[in-house]
């Protein structure tokens, strides 16, 4: 059993206006890895590279220890995928989709698929176009979860879904993860979902992996130092991950809050960073290109 379900080494991919150069990423098995980053950072590109929807100029991608080009079919047989724009034909209903997709997967269970449809409240006969956006996403999820995949690859699966469904979905995924052979790679803008649920967080920006860290590190070791401008001088530079100046002082994201505490003394506020804070403080203003 591989200790890494997904390994991306030295991948190079470029679009007009966007390049991703020698990207390395490792997704450990049996865990949930959250992928966060601003629009156009390359989250969707990564997912598409793994699924071989787009070609790459250089680099290797191993899934379940197998090269995803040489063993394309076998690798994809064990991946459950959900894209931010579920692109099923519009005049198809859930029952047809199940009958058409089922045979592709060894682990497919029609019974589990029906149970998921019931649980997610998806009408079996209704045409795809007639479903609400939320319902369309739930159908894509039902299909991804119905064939007992070892890796769930999700690009923005909860876009436009409400809090209650997101919580149920996370609980559903948590149940799946009790089997430590399963893993989840989950890209989202709603970072509050990841805060409690993800074991590792990978931040990607402008085509570069900025870091891949356990969520506990971000939550417990990292800190946001808030204070007057002179506070920055007291911090040692390599520890600072990002700075933002506000009308009332500065906010500095540091990778070692306890170290910062010793440096700054008791008077300075050091908060626990939310993932939004991490993302905002490590992003330089508003540099957005078309989302990839």
């Amino acid at each position, binding site marked *: 059993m591989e200790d890494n379900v997904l390994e991306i080494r030295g991948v190079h991919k470029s679009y007009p206006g966007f390049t991703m150069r020698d990207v390395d990423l490792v997704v450990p098995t049996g865990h949930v890895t959250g992928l*966060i*980053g*601003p*629009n*156009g950072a390359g989250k969707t590109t990564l997912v598409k590279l793994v699924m071989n929807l787009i070609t790459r100029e250089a680099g290797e991608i191993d899934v379940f220890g197998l090269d995803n080009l040489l063993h394309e079919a076998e690798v994809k047989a064990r991946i459950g995928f959900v894209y931010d724009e579920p692109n099923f034909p519009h005049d198809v209903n859930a029952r047809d989709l199940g009958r058409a997709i089922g045979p592709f997967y060894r682990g497919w269970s029609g019974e589990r698929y029906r149970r998921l449809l019931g649980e997610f409240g998806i009408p079996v006969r209704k045409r795809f176009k007639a479903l*609400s956006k*939320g319902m369309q996403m739930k159908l894509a999820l039902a299909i991804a979860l119905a064939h007992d995949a070892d890796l769930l690859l999700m690009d923005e699966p909860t*876009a*436009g*879904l*409400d*809090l*209650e*469904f997101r*919580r149920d979905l996370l609980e559903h995924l948590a149940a799946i993860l009790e089997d430590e052979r399963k893993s989840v790679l989950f890209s989202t*803008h*709603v*970072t*509050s979902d990841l805060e409690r649920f993800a074991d590792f967080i990978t931040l990607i920006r402008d085509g570069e992996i900025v870091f891949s860290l356990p969520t506990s590190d971000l939550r417990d070791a990292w800190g946001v130092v808030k204070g007057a401008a002179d506070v920055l001088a007291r911090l040692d530079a390599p520890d600072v991950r990002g700075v933002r100046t506000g009308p009332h002082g500065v906010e500095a994201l540091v990778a070692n809050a306890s170290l910062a505490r010793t440096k700054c003394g008791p008077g300075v506020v050091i908060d626990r960073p*939310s*993932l*939004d804070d991490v*993302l*905002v403080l490590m*992003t330089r203003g*508003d540099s*957005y*290109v*078309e*989302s990839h």
Partner: protein
Amino acid sequence: MDDLLVVERIRKAWDVVALEDVSLRLPPGHIMGIAGPNGSGKTTLIRLILGHIRPDGGAIRVFGDDPGLSGRAIRSRIGFVLDRPISYEHLSVTRLGRLVADFYADWDEVEFQRLLDEFELPGRRRASALSRGMRVKLGLALALAHNAELLVLDEPTTGLDPVFRRELLARLSAIIADGRTSVLFSTQILTDLDRVADFAVFLRGGRVVFSGPKDDLLDRWAIVRGGPELAAAAGADAVRGIRRSRMGFDVLFDDMDAAKPYCDGPAVLERPTLDDVFLLLGSKESQ
């Protein structure tokens, strides 16, 4: 300065009840966030304010008038961004500006150009070529360029990344700084309300589950997470919601002091996040 928006016991139903007995008030110079799951009535409420539909029961007053009767006058003082931020996407940004400008007597072209620069929106680019975040900003620029007194935004932050969201919310905070303009926006991401929202309204199945200053929730309310013995707390009057958790029960209190007696022993007393409040408030067990 009386309230900009007054909604009294509004009822609206098609084959299913969309809004039932909803009341809220929005004074000038404040931000109100409306949160709720899909189909909880958020968009219905916005359509009522814009006069797209008429209520079946209750009354709604915007700037003191009924949107159904004097909709035109009211809408000339409202800036809106619908959940589809931009229509007529085949037009360029400047052309869209000219089209919308025609409808507003007090359209301020200088302000519109300034907003386009601030939001880094290229004038010649077609709206269809903009990302969702950029389109929301264009919608906002169009809404702000005729110094509207009430801004109505339907799920502006859905699908935006955190940096964009925080920037948009900061912009809303700046808008109300003049003390005259108010903002009403719906959202599914409760962290949007954490910071700048003054009032929070939680809708579930068309009913108001909470409505009031958001600070009450963050400063006064409390959550006790504990074992099965907490089931006994269900009866207490300060309890606003109770929900089964893995280890036992999570109980939501609307007063920190009322919660203290329940957290002796293993139970933990915490300050709630808006996500927790929202989930616990409407949870089935609490009804």
